[in-house]
Structures are given as structure tokens and as C-alpha cells.
């Protein structure tokens, strides 16, 4: 069944969108990631204009993170204080990101920027995850070498210290603020929640306990992506509600199925699968940038109005 998207102004198959939402939902349920970094490139591939894909995906992430955070609030695994600090940074970052996005849009470089960001981040994260999970599998085969506890470094020498009770931390607010700003910029430019960047940053950089990391990052993501959605809706008019609803419905059900599948697989195997998938998407995007396009010219609305 074809459906006409009023903002994207293209006609796509509704079941294709439901299916995409479902598949990405299953993956995000399995791996505990938002799935934005997979969904947005997939939307590019099926011909949704990148500007619409990015803005609409931000809207969809609001729904999936809200659904996820409710479970974490019940388990009391959300550090609201840390979340708020990250959020303040995130809002500043999102505003900066939308400014950069609009500036590049008027220069005709927005597609390039979005795709370059994807190639860069998917490449780095995919490669890190791949190596890390290979090591983990190797380690699990020869027991005895427990991972070393990280040492306390320069992060603890910074001023403006604050106590984060849920995380059991007493650290400066500067590192979480910076992490928040970076994730906010990414959220606006790439249309992702940024969980796949924030989760490693919270564990390795801020030293937060793993059990509160996912809930806290989801809490922060809701507000940053909601803010990004509003900014895109009011400045670019690129949020497509019909597209968002179709992706949402598929995604929400997929996530629940994915969670069940995820519990039956080993963590290392899961991570290696995710790494391979991330690298595949990255490879496809990089290939498109490197190979001479079949059509060198592209048409766009004249900017400056």
C-alpha cells in the first residue's frame, strides 16, 4: 500500500516503513541501542530526503526512549541529577547543531555533512565494538585474567564538583556538560539519540556504574531529541508526522520482540553481530561518497527565503 508523506512529498510503501521500523526495533531491543543510527541511513536508502529523515528520526527516538525510560524509572536505575547536567549540555549542543545544520543546508552541503558524520562515527564505533567483543570472546576462552579497574585521572582534578548519589560519584560537572554538548550536536546533525556515543562516554570517561548508564542516557535523550524535533519543526519544517507514526508503530513492537531474542544470545556474540551491521551500513555510505555518482548534478530549492 503506497502512502504519500505530506512533508517529505514522496510516496512510499507503508508496509516497507512498518517493516523497517520493526527490524530496527528488533535490533534496538536486542542490543539496547536507540536504533537511530541505523534507521536514518536506511531512510536515505529508500529515498527520503536527508533533511526530513534526520528531523523525523529525532521525533521517533522520543517515543522509543520514553518507552524505555519508564521501565528504568521503575527499577530506580535513572540518575536524574546526572541526567539533568547532561541535559543542560545537550540542549546547548542541539541548538548549535541545528545552527550548523541550517548554515550548511543553505550552502548545499548538508547531505555531505550528515553522511560524513555517519561514516566517521559508524566506522569508529563499529571497529571499536568489533575489536572489543573479539577480545572479550578470546578472554572468556582462557579464564583468570580479570579486566583491570581503571585508575582515577585528570577528570577528578577539575573544579565545580557535585555529588551524584545514584551513580555514587563525586566529580566535576564539566565533563558531563561537555559530553552533553557533543551528543546534542550529533543528535541535531545526525538525527540520532546519541546513546551509542554517550553510553561508552559515561562508562569510560565519567566512570558511572553500568546499571544506571542506560536509564540515565535514555532520560537525557528524550529531552534532547524532543528539543531537536521542535527546532527542526519550527526552523526547517522537515518533521514528517506520517512517516514518524509509521516508523513508531513498527519500532515499538519490534523492540519488545528484540528484547526477548536478546536474552537468548550471549553478550559478546550480540555485540559482534551489531559491530558487523554497523560496519556494513558505514561501508555502504562510504562507498557512495567515494564512487563517482551516476548523476553529478542535484537540484535543490533556492535558499535564502
Amino acid at each position, binding site marked *: 500500500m503506497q502512502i*504519500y508523506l505530506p512533508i517529505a512529498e514522496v510516496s512510499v510503501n507503508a508496509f516497507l516503513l512498518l517493516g523497517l521500523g520493526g527490524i530496527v526495533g528488533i535490533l534496538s531491543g536486542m542490543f539496547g541501542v536507540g536504533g537511530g543510527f541505523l534507521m536514518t541511513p536506511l531512510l536515505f536508502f529508500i529515498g527520503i530526503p536527508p533533511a526530513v529523515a534526520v528531523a523525523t528520526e529525532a521525533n521517533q527516538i522520543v517515543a522509543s526512549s*520514553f518507552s524505555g525510560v519508564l521501565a528504568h524509572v521503575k527499577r530506580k536505575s535513572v540518575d536524574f541529577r546526572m541526567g539533568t547536567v547532561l541535559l543542560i549540555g545537550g540542549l546547548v549542543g542541539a541548538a548549535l547543531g541545528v545552527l550548523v545544520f541550517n548554515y550548511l543546508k543553505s550552502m548545499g552541503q548538508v547531505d555531505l555533512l550528515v553522511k560524513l558524520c555517519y561514516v566517521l562515527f559508524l566506522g569508529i564505533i563499529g571497529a571499536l565494538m568489533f575489536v572489543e567483543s573479539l577480545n572479550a570472546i578470546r578472554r572468556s576462552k582462557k579464564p583468570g585474567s580479570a579486566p583491570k579497574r581503571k585508575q582515577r585521572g585528570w577528570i577528578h582534578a577539575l573544579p565545580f564538583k557535585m555529588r551524584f548519589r545514584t551513580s555514587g560519584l563525586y566529580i566535576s560537572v564539566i565533563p558531563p556538560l561537555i559530553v552533553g554538548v557533543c551528543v546534542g550536536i550529533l543528535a541535531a546533525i545526525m538525527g540520532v539519540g546519541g546513546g551509542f556515543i554517550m553510553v561508552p562516554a559515561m562508562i569510560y570517561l565519567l566512570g558511572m556504574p553500568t546499571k544506571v548508564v542506560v536509564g540515565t542516557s535514555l532520560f537525557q535523550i528524550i529531552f534532547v531529541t524532543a528539543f531537536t524535533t521542535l527546532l527542526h*519543526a*519550527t526552523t526547517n519544517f522537515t518533521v514528517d508526522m506520517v512517516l514518524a507514526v509509521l516508523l513508531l508503530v513498527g519500532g515499538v513492537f519490534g523492540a519488545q520482540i528484540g528484547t526477548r531474542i536478546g536474552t537468548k544470545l550471549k553478550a559478546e556474540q550480540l555485540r559482534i553481530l551489531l559491530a558487523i551491521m554497523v560496519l556494513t551500513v558505514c561501508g555502504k555510505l562510504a562507498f557512495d561518497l567515494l564512487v563517482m555518482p551516476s548523476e553529478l548534478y542535484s537540484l535543490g530549492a533556492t535558499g535564502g527565503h
Partner: protein
Amino acid sequence: MLRWLAILVALAMPASAEEVVLGMSQDKVAITANFDGSEILIFGAVKREEAIPEGDPLQVIVAIQGPSEPITVRRKEKRFGIWVNTQSVDVDAAPSFYAVATSAPFDEVLGSTEDLRYKISIPSAIRSVGAPMTVQDSQSFTDAVIRVRKANSLFQLNEGSVEFSQDTLFKTSIAMPANLTEGAYRTRIYLTRSGVVVSEYETEIDVRKVGLERWLYTLSRQQPLIYGLLSLAIAIFSGWAASAIFTGLRRG
């Protein structure tokens, strides 16, 4: 008084021996939620006061033109190993949709001076005034507009697709793709003989989003804040609903 005026107008008009009487399968295209392109049937007849003149046969041209808008054409070049948009040319006005259907090969139907006058062929429908001095081959940018839009079925030249029987009845159908721009689509019919226009007729087809599509589009442009908040409300509600449904299922 009115009658006199009518006679005066009739006298002032050029005496045209052959005129178009037009029919259309639809004069409105509604973009609904499940819009997947549309086929428009255009048919008509030639009205004559006298016998068919001697000489070359009469030919028919049908042209449908969507609203024109300025567009920026960008060219990619290889920089640092990747393909990047570099030069750009602003085209002052290019129709968002343009289809020409003729009853014979275009060159036989219309002479080039007549084309300049009536702006019927695809290249003459695009207006490009100033390309920046840095761009040498601005023509290739205009060509690109035609090539890209032809590839998307937004520009069509359907030679010989007008069926014209007994020099009197004609009909053709024009396929409009799903990605249409809203607006009034100017529809022109020309009768030509020996490459010269002998009669013309003009009307409009109204292409419009309707229902939900219309409502959402208008809301997103006129009340973007409310639209954004509504999108968020839907997202938050479905997030909550999904969580509630699945906790319910797990308990039940």
C-alpha cells in the same frame, strides 16, 4: 448593448477557421494519503466553420505545466577523494512538472520560431538568466535540470502519443508521478499546420493535497510550534502506550 459588445469582440478576434473544444477526464488532482500518481485523460475535438483546408495535415500539441519555482543546481566534483557539491547555478524558473504530448514527431509539429514564441518545448519552458561568472558552462546546468526531472518522470516529451482521428477528434493521457508539487497546472492545447500554430486553448488543472495531508502540511507551515508539539505528544503517548501494553501482556 451586451449583444453589440459581443459582436464587436467577435469581429476583433482573428478569424480562426479551426478551434479546439476540450474535454478532460478530471480538472482536479487530489493528493490523498494513498496518492500514487495520477493519469489524466485529455480529449477534445476541432470545431470547423468550413471545409478542411488543403495542404499539410493538422497536428495537436498538449502541454501541462506545473508551478514554476527557482531552483539551485549543484554539481559534484571530486575533492579530497570524495564527491562534494562545488559549483552551483540558480535557475530562475523551472516548472516542477512539464509534459508535452504531440500527434507526430515534435520537429514536424512545431517550427523553432513558433516554439520560441509560444514556449512549448521542454528547454524553452525553463528560464535561466544569470549564471555566476565563475561558471563557464551554465548550459550544462540547465541540461541537468531537464535530465534529472526526465528521469523522475517530472518532465515528459511524448511524441506521437496524441491520437488524432479524421482531423477532428483527439485524445491523449498524461501520467503524473506521485511526487507532485501543489498548485494550478497550466494546460495548453495547440493546433498546428505546417509547423505554425493555427489555434490555441488554455485551461488549468488544480493539484492539491486534501484531507489529512492538507491539514498536516498547512499546520506544519503556519503553526510550526503546535505541529512540533503535536508530533512530540504523539511520540510520548505511543511510547507510554507501548510500555503499558507490554507490561500488561507480561502480567496477563
